[in-house]
């Protein structure tokens, strides 16, 4: 553990150069105890195994492993401190639905949301999303330059997820702000002030969503909120008879909160990072521009090599062997998707963007198993449309000279460029 013990995985320096850290880790141990009772899992096979094993690796009190830990980077999460609990108590109570759920309850919620976000259901939004993307491009196309992160990458998923869920897009500045503040809890180290601010943002977001749910109960529409207020899920099996019940408001708010935040803070980062990679590879860029049918492969490879979600957690319920290591019951497990996706044991020349890769769909950028990203079809569609339009309407995409430092946000969970200044000619 020589190299690893010298590196603090939560420092800004390590996180900026995280792929070097991951590589060092995989070379020494695909599974290792990073702190007492906390296991990092970074090898592809080990990650894939943990993700698919919900019996031994629980998401309940495990998925959001960095919450409320104050300054101690790896301390085990506990119930929120009283001052934070008091803020959260001013909104509907928290429920385990998707991210923090385990089968069989998770399966029931998941089954409902799967159908709301299926490829067939979301296809109807494609023209509207394409029009949003074109409007965004219209705003900068004549200037020949763009700060891509704030003017494009952030905006596309923000507007798209609002339409699909059924949240008014004109409120987007509000929920963008709430979303950014809530995900600070995933950074790695959190000041007390950040933790309080995140709790206030969570409270305000939940209250806002509660109002949307109550409105939808009166006038349900053809969107995710409408689906959820009309949905019935299995409550109980009494003999041979299955009993169904509607979802209550805290459950729907929980689902919407996750979809709204995860829907923004992912595609956003993918569009930024993948544009950077494309500009670095002008030959590939030209090839995809000439043949837009390659865009889905570009997006797929982008999710692998520039995974927006780098890590999530689990709680180990039983002693379980992963690789050569036995992870003891009671341990916290940190799943490093960003590391697994660059494991050379699985992906040749893993750091390279290669859209012709034979095993291009074997990445775990969307996870694997029961918790596989519920919005993956939407994420793929939004990203495809964004690159189809961006590449067809511009040419000679290039970095604005001297304006990019290519640094990333300080965040353990997400990989996100701070800025990306691009220049181009109008196609």
């Amino acid at each position: 553990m020589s190299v690893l013990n010298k590196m603090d995985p939560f420092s800004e320096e390590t996180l900026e150069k995280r792929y070097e850290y991951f590589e060092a880790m995989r070379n020494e141990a695909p599974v290792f105890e990073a702190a007492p009772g906390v296991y990092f899992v970074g090898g592809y096979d080990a990650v894939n195994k943990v993700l698919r094993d919900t019996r031994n690796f629980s998401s309940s009190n495990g998925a959001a492993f960095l919450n409320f830990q104050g300054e101690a980077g790896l301390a085990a999460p506990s119930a929120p401190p009283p001052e934070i609990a008091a803020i959260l108590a001013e909104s509907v109570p928290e429920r385990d639905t998707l991210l923090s759920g385990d089968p069989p309850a998770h399966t029931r919620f998941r089954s409902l949301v799967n159908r709301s976000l299926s490829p067939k259901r979301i296809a109807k939004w494609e023209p509207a999303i394409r029009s949003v993307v074109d409007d965004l491009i219209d705003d900068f196309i004549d200037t020949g330059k763009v700060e891509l992160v704030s003017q494009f990458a952030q905006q596309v998923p923000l507007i798209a997820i609002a339409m699909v869920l059924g949240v008014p897009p004109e409120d987007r500045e509000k929920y963008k702000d709430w979303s950014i503040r809530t995900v600070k809890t995933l950074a790695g180290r959190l000041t007390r002030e950040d933790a309080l601010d995140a709790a206030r943002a969570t409270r305000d977001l939940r209250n806002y969503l509660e109002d949307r749910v109550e409105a939808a109960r009166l006038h349900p529409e053809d969107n995710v909120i409408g689906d959820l207020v009309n949905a019935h899920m299995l409550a109980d099996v009494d003999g041979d008879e299955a009993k169904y019940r509607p979802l209550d408001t805290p459950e729907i708010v929980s689902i919407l909160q996750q979809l709204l935040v995860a829907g923004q803070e992912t595609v956003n980062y993918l569009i930024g990072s993948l544009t950077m990679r494309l500009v670095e590879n002008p030959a590939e860029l030209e090839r995809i521009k000439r043949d837009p049918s390659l865009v889905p492969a570009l997006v797929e490879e982008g999710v692998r090599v520039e995974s927006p979600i780098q890590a999530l957690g689990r709680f180990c319920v039983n002693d379980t062997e992963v690789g050569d290591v036995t992870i003891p019951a009671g341990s916290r497990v940190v799943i490093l998707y960003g590391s697994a996706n660059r494991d050379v044991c699985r992906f040749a020349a893993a750091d390279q963007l290669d859209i012709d890769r034979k095993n291009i769909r074997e990445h775990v950028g969307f996870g694997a198993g029961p918790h596989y990203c519920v919005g993956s079809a939407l994420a793929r569609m939004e990203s495809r449309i964004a690159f189809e339009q961006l590449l067809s309407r511009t040419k000679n995409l290039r970095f604005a000279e001297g304006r990019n430092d290519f640094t990333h946000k300080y965040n353990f969970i997400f990989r996100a460029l701070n800025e990306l200044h691009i220049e181009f000619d109008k196609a």
Partner: protein
Amino acid sequence: MKLEINYRKCARSGQCFYMYPDLVQKGPRDLPRPLNPEIGSDDVGRAEELVEICPMEAITLGP
């Protein structure tokens, strides 16, 4: 009705065999395999759901 899986599209999410274990099971390399490709009339509704929720549209139900 016959359940078919297009392995060229499959991304091994596993949603099919985790959500519908009575219709699809996990095969080698985390790839799904229909338990019985012939879907009886009682199961057609669930099989249609299964087809719909595949994130890669890799599953079809045909005659």
